[in-house]
């Protein structure tokens, strides 16, 4: 029977064809040991693919993994998390401050303020030392004549919409004061000359015209910002590295820096980073290797924005984009909106970084090759591969068989891998921490003593030991523990359930017949929420519920899908308590997380923390340019928040990276040493020096 034969032989033939393919495939052995070029490749793996390889548009982790290798910024962080020059060789922060000559104001002795007298008196006071500490700082002091300016103002409308209004400013005469260093208290100091109430008589109405006139009332709250009587303009002057070339051979200069800024601010490019560069007033190119950035106001974290990769002007300017549109035959309608996002550059980037782009196969891998012309000397690894392996388990399989060079172990695997002699492991604290946040607006949680009592009832040590397998550290405050902003001397809340009950008794909560705490006939009861899909947070919720039950606090728990969690509970502020985490940066500015003005709906101070002392510290920190003073302020802020306990700060998880033992740090003279992570725990800090040896070295 023919049909029968076919039915029997077809599966046989298929199986034979499939099975024989096995014999053609190189084994892991051949790939990793018997392949001399393998040691020159570094193979990384990632859960997700990059989105877009243009540093001014990309916002996801995978894209920035690649763009930090292909592009380079003016600055980056050194091993102690301080700024270090990359494309900038040096930078200097100075200040120009402006004082408006307020007509009708008078000096302490009663004489009227005019531009000339104001200039004279200031000059005298500074020179004579009447104003303390300014004599050495002063570079220049001069009068500036009145001028006109037109400006757009954006107004928050209803339902989050934004409206733009044009205003005409009649700027009065001003005094310009140039200082060697930024001094946020300059005008406070000058009060000895101009008196403390100098700004009160400022006639804003005369200086500002609003078109259309019916919008005047809406703009009014912003008048004092439009023509500030006291204005600080910090200035950063960057000296750029000379002779640095993009991967296509074109030389890098100040034009590229300014172009990068302009591209970010260009609304067509829809850059998610505009707010980082928004404080910039203007950028001046003094010569091809000197660039001056003038800022609108005091905002010290603004300098961090210059860690962003610089993009090449010659490949992305209007002329280049037009050429690309012609080549790709873009339709007339699309030309209108065609910008950097649409450009092929985003899938084919060219930068000045240590690695240059070769190939990108979506959801499969990205291949980079070392830049032989890199200004700091070419990296040791010839090739860099970024493999997309979406599953954690297969990632581990590939790592163990040698087809991937690194693996970040999950907490429960770490103890096992530490014993494995084939690998070296590096454990570091990240920039994140997990906490229980209380809705500070609710009458129940208003009293810090109650929040403290709730915190004291939870044994955080136990959480760290049993849920995170000891791969976490206790934290006490709002800053990442590995930064200098964190005050290591602040003790954590003790685990003391008895003390917690005592504290609650003092607050009037007494145990009722059922064992629950009660006050005025109401139980001490609330809901603790967290998002679904995070097993650690879920476990914390359960432990907290149990710990509170032991002291007589009734806590109900619920999990929600992330989007629902944000939309229905966090954004409108409708929750009692939540378990969440922050992932921060080395930035000392915590304005958005803790300032009382950021407690509205959709904002990040969703717990509604409100402390005038903290507010003042937060504002001073973002205006301070001196790192030592900043550190002192952040430590005070840390203490303040630790005292108020708006959160119960729990732990900062440690991340453990595993590498093949054969990877070492190679110096230029050919000697090598064990890989040393930076003090802040970043192991990739010295990545350009890494090299894989043929055999595991002994140290």
């Amino acid at each position, binding site marked *: *029977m023919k049909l029968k034969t076919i039915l029997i032989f077809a599966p046989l033939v298929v199986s034979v064809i*499939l099975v024989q393919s096995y014999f053609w495939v190189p084994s892991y*052995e051949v790939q990793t040991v018997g*392949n001399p070029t393998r040691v020159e490749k570094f193979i990384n793996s990632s859960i997700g693919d990059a989105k877009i390889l243009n540093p001014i548009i990309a*916002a996801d982790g995978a894209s920035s993994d690649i763009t930090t290798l292909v592009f380079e910024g003016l600055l980056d962080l050194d091993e102690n998390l301080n700024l270090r020059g990359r494309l900038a060789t040096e930078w200097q922060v100075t200040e120009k401050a402006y004082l408006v000559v307020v007509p009708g104001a008078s000096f302490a002795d009663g004489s009227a303020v005019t531009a000339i007298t104001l200039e004279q008196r200031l000059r005298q006071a500074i020179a004579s030392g009447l104003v303390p500490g300014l004599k050495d700082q002063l570079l220049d002091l001069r009068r500036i004549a009145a001028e006109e300016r037109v400006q757009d103002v954006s107004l*928050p409308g209803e339902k989050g919409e934004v409206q733009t209004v044009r205003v005409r400013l009649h700027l009065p005469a001003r005094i310009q004061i140039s200082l060697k260093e930024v001094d946020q208290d300059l005008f406070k100091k000058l009060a000895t000359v101009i008196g403390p109430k100098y700004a009160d008589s400022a006639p804003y109405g005369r200086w500002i015209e609003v078109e259309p006139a019916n919008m005047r009332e809406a703009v009014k709250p912003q008048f004092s910002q439009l023509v500030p009587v006291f204005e600080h303009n910090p200035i950063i002057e960057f000296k750029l590295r000379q002779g640095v070339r993009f991967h296509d051979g074109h030389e890098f200069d100040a034009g590229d820096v300014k172009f990068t800024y302009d591209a970010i601010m260009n609304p067509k490019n829809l850059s998610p980073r*505009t707010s980082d560069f928004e404080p910039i007033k203007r950028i001046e190119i003094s010569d091809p290797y000197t660039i001056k950035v003038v800022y609108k106001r005091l905002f010290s974290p603004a300098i961090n924005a210059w860690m962003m990769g610089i993009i090449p002007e010659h490949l992305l300017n209007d002329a280049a984009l037009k050429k690309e549109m012609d080549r790709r035959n873009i*339709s007339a309608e699309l030309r209108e909106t065609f910008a950097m996002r649409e450009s092929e550059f985003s899938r084919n980037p060219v930068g000045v970084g240590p690695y240059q782009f070769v190939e990108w196969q979506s959801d499969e891998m990205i291949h980079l090759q070392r830049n032989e012309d890199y200004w700091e000397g070419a990296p040791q690894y010839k090739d860099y591969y970024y493999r997309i392996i979406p599953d954690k388990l297969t990632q581990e399989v*590939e790592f163990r*068989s040698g087809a991937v060079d690194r693996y970040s172990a999950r907490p429960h695997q770490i103890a096992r891998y530490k014993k494995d002699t084939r690998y070296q492991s590096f454990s570091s604290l990240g920039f994140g921490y997990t906490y229980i946040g209380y809705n500070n607006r609710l009458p129940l949680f208003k009293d810090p003593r109650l929040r403290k009592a709730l915190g004291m009832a939870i044994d955080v040590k136990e959480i760290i030991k049993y849920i995170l397998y000891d791969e976490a550290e206790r934290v006490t405050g709002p800053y990442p523990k590995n930064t200098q902003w964190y005050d290591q001397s602040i003790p954590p809340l003790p685990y003391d359930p008895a003390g917690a009950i005592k504290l609650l008794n003092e607050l009037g909560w007494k145990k009722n017949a059922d064992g629950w705490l009660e006050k005025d006939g109401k139980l001490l009861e609330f809901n603790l929420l967290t998002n679904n899909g995070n097993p650690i947070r879920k476990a914390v919720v359960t432990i907290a519920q149990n710990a509170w039950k032991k002291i007589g606090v009734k806590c109900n728990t619920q999990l929600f899908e992330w989007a629902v969690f944000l939309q229905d509970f966090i954004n409108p502020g409708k929750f009692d308590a939540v378990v969440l985490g922050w992932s921060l940066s080395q930035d000392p500015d915590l304005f958005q997380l803790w300032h009382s003005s950021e407690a509205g709906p959709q904002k990040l101070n969703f717990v509604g923390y409100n402390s005038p002392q903290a507010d003042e510290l937060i504002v001073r920190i973002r205006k301070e340019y001196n790192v030592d003073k900043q550190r002192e302020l952040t430590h005070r802020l840390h203490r303040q928040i630790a005292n108020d306990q708006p959160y119960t700060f729990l732990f900062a998880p440690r991340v453990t990276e595993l590498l093949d033992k054969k990877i070492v740090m190679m110096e230029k003279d050919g000697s090598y040493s064990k890989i040393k992570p930076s003090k802040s725990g970043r192991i990739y800090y010295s990545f350009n020096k890494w090299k894989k040896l043929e055999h595991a070295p002994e140290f």
Partner: protein
Amino acid sequence: MWPYILRNLLQRLVLLFIVSVIAHGVVHLAPGEPTEVDPSNPRMKPEDIVKIRKAFHLDEPLHLQYAYWMRDLFSGELKSFKDSQPVLPKIWDRFLNSLPLFILATIIIWTLSFPTGIHAAVRRGSVYDRSTTFIAYTLISVPGFFLSYLAILWVVSVLGVPVIGMRTFGMEDALPLFRGMDRLWHLVVPSLMTALGGIAVLSRYVRSQMLEVIGQDYVRTARAKGLPEDQVIYRHALRNALLPFVTMFGFLLPGLIGGSVIFEQIFAWPGLGRLGYDAILSRDFPVILTINFIAAALTLAGTFMSDLLYAAVDPRIRLH
């Protein structure tokens, strides 16, 4: 015949339109917004977000958004939110990656299910029949991803060769023949894993269909005529038992676009399933909607085709 085809096509077009409207509504109803306008970067200002929403037409009412989507889809200018790349070429590339997996899995399912199913039906109640039943139910009830993990661990530790991805990493310089065989090998394990569930189900179908047909009068007649057993089974019984499977061919069509999220995820296969899954996670509406639209179109085309096929093979059925 022709009026039937025309009327049916028209009905299906209307249905497709309705499906696309509902899908559009459902996708926008789901909580959460595209990552581009719901960023994790706390520094982003409301003004910037408004700008991006506007560029994506997210500030327009739903029916206008639908119109924009349809216009861009049919002019071929639809762009993904994620990277502003055109959606159709993106889907096409991923489709080409998923296609071999789908074809091989289908071949494995159909070639293996029939012999096992027929054999089980013929030897009803035998040890073979009972053990295949047992195996089939095991395969149906054990989740595919679990078996896949076991298979990967086994291949890697015992055979010592890579199984993940579409090809062995670092084979770019090898001879074309080696590369081709390597690609084939990388297909084997994932397509076998995808096929296991299918084999279990389909062989059960074949078995029950055969059993039903074998009990019919004409089969008894054939046996009574003294025909050899093989001829009775393969000519008289099998042909009639096959009829329902012809319709199943039509239903294969939508499977083309579905891909398999779980298997593509585990085997790091850059296929269509993952594209769709990632798009859903980041609320990349143009990609989600377009994949959904194509899948709906293929489903409708598939059922249409099986109607026609059924009429073609079964003389008892006439289309009016």
